[in-house]
């Protein structure tokens, strides 16, 4: 538990950009989401971040509270390991993820809308590309997901040489993203239906993170966003190189990224980025699922803008 006290001498106090009236903020880390919500409902807290999807309705039903949400600048997706010639956790020969048809089949099997409806309780925006809304490369058209088609997915798997499917382990965090483990469970069930037998390995984020950045994981759930409002950052980390890059390589993408890095004209640059993300989508470089929402529950007396990066800015908080 920590306490923040307003700096009385700060220059910004009272300026239109920072209308905040809160003098003291007490921050209480509550890991257990049920307890977090119970504390809000019992009136101990004024603001909770990360309201579990399941509890939104319940908080909204209470007259004293409201729930506000914005999409986060972060895309949730399933990543593949391209680096290994043979996947450690799979019974398949070689690395099935190197086959485009396998990756396409997975895209066709994952029903992001159903996950939105059932698991995210409406609080997500399904997507097929890596760039978050509002950033270069994102458009509704580009993010449109193909219709779910299990038959076609099975056919693609067969064409790729896996008529009986294959097995693989999915490394999934259980305390990192909104509903991370339930999403993975749902995906396991959906992939099972086209013959890919996925074993779920749900881990606390520290252990899971090591598997991903150590490039040991064969198949993983990852969320990636940008602190800079520049989607070049996302593409660079996921498609070109760095701790979160697990071996995807595409000459065209590399060229475009290189050019975009030097391009000063923002329109041209945006067009290049759009192309990069479109190629990655068509190449099924990863299997994007959705953008999660930042959802805060708060006292109706409190006004504070929901931050897409989930960082409350109390300079702007007004308590009526």
């Amino acid at each position, binding site marked *: 538990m920590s306490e923040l006290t307003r700096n009385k001498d700060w220059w910004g106090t009272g300026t239109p950009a920072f209308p905040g009236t809160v003098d003291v903020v007490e921050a209480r880390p*509550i890991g*257990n989401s049920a*307890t977090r919500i*119970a*504390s809000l*409902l019992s009136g*101990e807290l004024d603001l909770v971040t990360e309201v579990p999807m399941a509890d939104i309705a319940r908080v909204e039903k209470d007259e004293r509270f409201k729930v506000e949400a914005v999409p986060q600048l972060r895309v949730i997706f399933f990543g593949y390991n391209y680096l290994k010639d043979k996947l450690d956790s799979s019974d398949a020969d070689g690395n099935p993820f190197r086959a485009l048809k396998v990756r396409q089949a997975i895209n066709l099997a994952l029903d992001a809308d159903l996950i939105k409806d059932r698991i995210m309780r409406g609080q997500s925006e399904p997507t097929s590309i890596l760039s978050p809304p509002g950033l270069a490369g994102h458009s509704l058209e580009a993010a449109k997901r193909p219709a779910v088609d299990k038959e076609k997915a099975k056919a693609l798997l067969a064409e790729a040489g896996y008529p009986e499917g294959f097995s693989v382990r999915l490394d999934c965090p259980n305390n990192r993203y909104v509903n991370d483990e339930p999403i993975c469970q749902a995906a396991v069930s959906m992939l099972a239906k086209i013959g890919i037998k996925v074993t779920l390995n749900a881990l*606390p984020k520290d252990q899971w993170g090591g598997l991903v*950045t150590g490039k040991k994981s064969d198949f993983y759930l990852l969320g990636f966003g940008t602190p800079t409002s520049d989607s070049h950052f996302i593409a660079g980390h996921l498609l070109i190189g760095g701790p979160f890059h697990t071996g995807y390589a595409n000459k065209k993408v590399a060229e475009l990224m290189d050019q975009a890095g030097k391009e000063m004209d923002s329109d041209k640059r945006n067009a290049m980025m759009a192309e990069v993300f479109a190629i990655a989508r068509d190449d099924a470089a990863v299997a994007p699922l959705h953008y999660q929402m930042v959802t805060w529950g708060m006292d109706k007396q409190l006004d504070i803008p929901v931050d897409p990066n989930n960082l409350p800015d109390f300079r702007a908080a007004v308590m009526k």
Partner: protein
Amino acid sequence: MISLFIHKLGQLLFVVLATGLIAFAIFSYAGDPVDAMLGDAASEVERTELREQLGLNRPFYLRFGDFMGQAVQGNFGRSFRSNEEISTLLVERLPATLELVLVAAVMTLVLGVTLGLYTGSHRNGWSRFILSASLLGVSMPTFMLGLLGIFLFSVHLGWLPASGRPGTVDIGWWTTSLLTLDGWRGILMPTMTLAVFNLGLYVRLVRAEVLEIRTTDYIKFARARGLSEADISRHHVLPNALSPLINVAALNIGTMIAFSLITESVFQWPGLGLMFVNAIGFSGFPVMAAYFMLVALMFVMLNLIADILLVVVDPRLRRG
């Protein structure tokens, strides 16, 4: 009696050494501090250097001696995660756990002895009710009880806070909840949750003990001398029941210290147990090891206190 004391001290030393060994084993083999401190990117040269620096190349017994030497001075190293001195963390969180256990222990002992004596000497509806309730109490997992309590008293009725440790007052380095109404409101539910299981056990134990004593010759003899039932209970049953009760009380309080980790994680009570549970989540082995040793030490101290009390209440242990 002195030899008994030396014997007990020897036992204490054995337990401290043995738990120290376990803690040390976890500390030094389960998590590689080099990995934790340098990350994956470090080169082999850097690793070797750090190993030298940390003295990890020295023989086992030297390192264990060092570890115990440090531990005795209260130095358990730093947390992998927050890089805080673990001893500081322990001192910060100790009052929360101790108060929780203390209040629960007082509740258990007072109620347990009263109800146990009652059920041991009466065979009526109340007695049967108390016994059934105590059986239900020992059948109810602590975490279920905590969840039920939160659901009922915090969410539905809104009487008690669901989480955290509100209303604390600092007395030197000790923070206490016992001086404010808010503090008591906050500590009530966690302590009750913690106390119920042990209370159930205790009532049954006291009862069994009382029934056992009531069949002895010296109670029959006391009756044959015409002493009143009240006198017999006070002067003959209770004094003889004390020894076993003290033994079990020590065991019970020790169990409660360990069980407090359940209560603390359900109620997000900022004590040692919560720290331990969180540490498991991020593989914080030094924190785990320190907690482990501390709990074992408290347990041993409790037993020592119990042994001293036993000598006080039982004349047979005093001489010879």
